[in-house]
């Protein structure tokens, strides 16, 4: 029986909430000094702070959070940063929520350290911290005594590797490829490009990396420039889909759609459509929906007193023309089965 | 206060003009007159209200009460353009010149000559430059080419440009607020020459000055202001510098 069966989920949810209510009434309003297993007032209220909603990726994440919370009957408040670069704004939002009576916090920080202060506050109050998608810097967390209960995220290196392997497949006679990254120095972008490099076969060389600030227009301009510099370029690896669509446009402008292979990472709807239409040659889809959903599940498991696994890899899938239809039909949910340790914990 | 003279000689009649800025009463019942073809001086201590009165006459401020009659007709001045149209030109204390613009651009500021091309009006630069040259040479003003930027001109030259602007547009009254205050001896002499030439050409001049010798030298009539009021007027040839000073300080009542 799959834990994704709505009936099972509802039953679980009801059981959880009843259990939590009983616990709450039993313990009264006094703070228990329990360890990481039990939360102070297990009212099951969850707060989530994610990155900017100006990117459909995080909209899916929000959807996953809300859907799972709804079906499990867990009250959830989701706050997003004003934009994908608003580090201090996001920290302010978390600090605001930290003062309120949530028992579990799902955090998706813009940078490795911008939410450390808020998270430290939470740890001091013994709230459960579930880190999703973008990792909190481990050293900083340890120094603040605020290591999250679990980290659920896409292994960006793994995602890049999938893209690298696929690129090698697409270029049987080898060639030169270029990488278009996000903001210069960004960890996620760096990890994906690193993975991509690792996944490349011996006859495909990564010759140039440029930064395009996660901006579609800049990616277009830079891709045009790179193509100009390397007319024999065989492919592009792009750190996210939004930029990937810009690169696709640049390649189309040069009249080389299909001849220059483009693979990007994320899995937003427009990119999947582009794969179907042949403008992109592959997309490594992440499932922010699943990440969000697992975030809530982690909170549920923690509320039940379970010890959470330190790291959980979120599913990724390579979408090509062959399975684009399936991917589109299921989006934002994964179209393939994936390991969900939290479901297991809750059984 | 005024000596007997035919009414038609009066170019400007200010009657009971009052103006307050918030709680500060800048002008209180100010009345004075000005005759055609004369240099009339307005003197007073700092803060007496001279510049404020000038700004009322040139259309920048609107008095709360009182009337201003010019050339026989009562004036409703709601903007500097109204004043200019009536024939009142002003050379402000700060000269009101835009440093980054050229001499001819400043001369024609807000009265630019245009050529119409369909619905659009384009600047007629050639005509303005020509007219500017004429204006400058008529007044024998020593200014380098009218294409020079005002920024490059000396204090006296800028003053000359400002006066040229005031005098060059067939104005009946030219008001000058402290025209030589910041100038050296030579330049002051040149500007005074200009003022007398203006008078000789038929303009009436209202001169605000701290310089008594200048006032006694140039003017036909002197009005004194103190603390927002007009406290007295004399024909210059019938008074002395000392009397003026006493009126200013209040030692003498009007």
């Amino acid at each position: 029986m799959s834990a994704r069966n709505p009936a099972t989920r509802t039953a679980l949810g009801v059981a959880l909430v009843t259990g939590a209510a009983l616990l709450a009434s039993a313990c009264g309003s006094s703070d228990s000094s329990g360890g990481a297993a039990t939360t102070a007032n297990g009212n099951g209220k969850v707060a989530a702070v994610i990155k900017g909603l100006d990117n459909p990726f995080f909209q899916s994440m929000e959807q996953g959070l809300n859907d799972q919370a709804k079906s499990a009957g867990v009250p959830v408040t989701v706050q997003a940063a004003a934009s994908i670069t608003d580090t201090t704004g996001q920290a302010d939002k978390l600090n605001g929520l930290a003062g309120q009576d949530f028992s579990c916090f799902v955090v998706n920080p813009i940078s490795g350290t911008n939410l450390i202060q808020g998270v430290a506050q939470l740890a001091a109050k013994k709230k459960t911290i579930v880190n999703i998608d973008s990792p909190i810097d481990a050293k900083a967390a340890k120094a603040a005594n605020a290591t999250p209960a679990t980290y659920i995220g896409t292994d960006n290196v793994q995602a890049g590797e999938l893209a690298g392997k696929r690129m090698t497949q697409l270029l049987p006679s080898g060639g030169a490829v270029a990488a278009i990254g996000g903001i210069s120095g960004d960890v996620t972008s760096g990890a994906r490009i690193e993975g991509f490099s690792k996944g490349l076969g011996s006859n495909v060389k990564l010759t140039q990396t440029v930064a395009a600030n996660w901006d579609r227009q800049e990616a277009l301009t830079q891709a045009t420039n790179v193509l100009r510099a390397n007319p024999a370029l065989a492919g592009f690896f792009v750190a996210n889909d939004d930029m990937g669509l810009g690169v696709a446009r640049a390649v189309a402008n040069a009249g080389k759609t299909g001849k220059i292979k483009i693979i990007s990472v994320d899995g937003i709807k427009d990119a999947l459509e582009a794969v179907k239409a042949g403008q992109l040659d592959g997309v490594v889809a992440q499932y922010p929906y699943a990440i969000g959903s697992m975030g809530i599940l982690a909170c549920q498991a923690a509320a039940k007193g379970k010890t959470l696994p330190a790291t959980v890899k979120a599913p990724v899938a390579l979408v090509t023309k062959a399975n684009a239809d399936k991917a589109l039909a299921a989006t934002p949910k994964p179209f393939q089965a994936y390991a969900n340790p939290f479901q297991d914990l809750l059984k | 206060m005024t000596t007997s003279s035919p009414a038609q000689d009066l170019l400007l009649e200010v009657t009971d003009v009052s103006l307050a800025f918030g709680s500060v009463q800048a002008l209180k019942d100010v009345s004075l007159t000005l005759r055609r073809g004369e240099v009339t001086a307005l003197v007073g201590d700092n803060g007496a209200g001279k510049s404020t009165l000038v700004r009322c006459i040139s259309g920048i401020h609107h008095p709360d009460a009182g009337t201003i009659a010019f050339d026989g007709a009562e004036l409703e001045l709601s903007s500097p353009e109204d004043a200019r149209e009536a024939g009142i030109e002003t050379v402000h204390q700060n000269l009101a010149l835009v440093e980054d613009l050229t001499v001819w651009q400043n001369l024609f500021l807000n009265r630019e000559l245009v050529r119409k091309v369909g619905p659009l009006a384009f600047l007629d630069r050639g005509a303005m430059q020509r007219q500017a040259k004429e204006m400058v040479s008529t007044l024998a003003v020593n200014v380098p080419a009218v294409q020079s930027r005002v920024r490059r001109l000396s204090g006296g030259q800028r003053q000359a440009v400002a006066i040229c602007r005031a005098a060059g547009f067939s104005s009946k009254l030219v008001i000058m607020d402290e025209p030589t205050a910041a100038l050296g001896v030579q330049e002051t002499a040149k500007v005074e020459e200009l003022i007398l030439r203006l008078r000789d050409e038929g303009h009436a001049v209202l001169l605000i000055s701290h310089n008594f010798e200048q006032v006694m030298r140039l003017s036909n009539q002197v009005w004194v202001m103190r603390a927002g009021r007009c406290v007295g007027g004399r024909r210059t040839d019938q008074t002395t510098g000392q009397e003026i000073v006493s009126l200013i300080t209040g030692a003498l009542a009007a």
Partner: protein
Amino acid sequence: MPSTTTAAGPAETRSETWSARAKDVGFWAEWAALVGLVALIVIFGALNPTFLSAGNIESMLVAAAILIILSVGQTFVIATAGIDLSVASTMTLGAVAFGQVYARGGGLWASCLAAVAAGTVVGIANGLLVARAKITDFIVTLGTLSAAAGLALILSDGKPVTVIDAGLLKLSTGGIGVLGWTFLIAAVVAVAAHVTLFRTRFGTHVLATGGSPEAATATGISTARVKIAVYVISGVLAGFAAILLVGRIGAAEPAANTSFLLNSVAAVVLGGVSLFGGRATIIGPVLGALLLTALVNGLTLLGVSQFYQPLSVGIVVVLAAFLTRFQR
């Protein structure tokens, strides 16, 4: 254009004047953008011949078009001693307006109108708040920056709208030789702006308002009306730039476009326009925009590490600002 200072003397002093000019730092300061651009072209052209290829020049000119239009709008505002920090967000709002109308089947022209209308509304708001409510321009446009960006997110629900239109596609990819249509449009805008600034009464009033508001008021110019007008111009041009942006990337998205804001101010400063108002040219900021675009293009062609690109741009802008101190 720097005008003659002292009276033009006889022919024998003219050669004197030229060499004197060359030694005069003020002269170089006035033309910093052109000098910089020529230097860049020479250096990059020598290091990588592809830089000067027809194809590359075409893509550079097209890439610069949007920035040119935004910089021209910004120039009008800065000429009145103001600043418009909302240009990029207004462009975003314009793009989103375009997308929303387009997605509902409005067609190309209605969508273009929507983009320009959105820009106009923001421009009017800026103008009224600065000129009538007398709030500092920095604060006002900072506020409209956020408001417009937020409005764009709300209207679009955070989702991009793909815009595939044959006409728009031809606009963004076609042209005459190396001059793409979008660049030509930007050039037309620049020429119109130049004529407006230097050949109309309004243009003189703009420079007067910035150069000396007291002088302008004393001669009867309504500085309030001039200020409202320049913010509206900036907004309208941002709306216009939005259309070109949608054409370029083939989608209307609520992206922040922050780099456009910073680059528009940089281009204006590079162009020798004084941030204190009163002194402006149009050709300067246009050259500044071209310089910034060529800089990024050249660095990428040379394969310079991505970490050095922002540093190079920063150095160039600071150098240019430093040079403008020597303007007479």
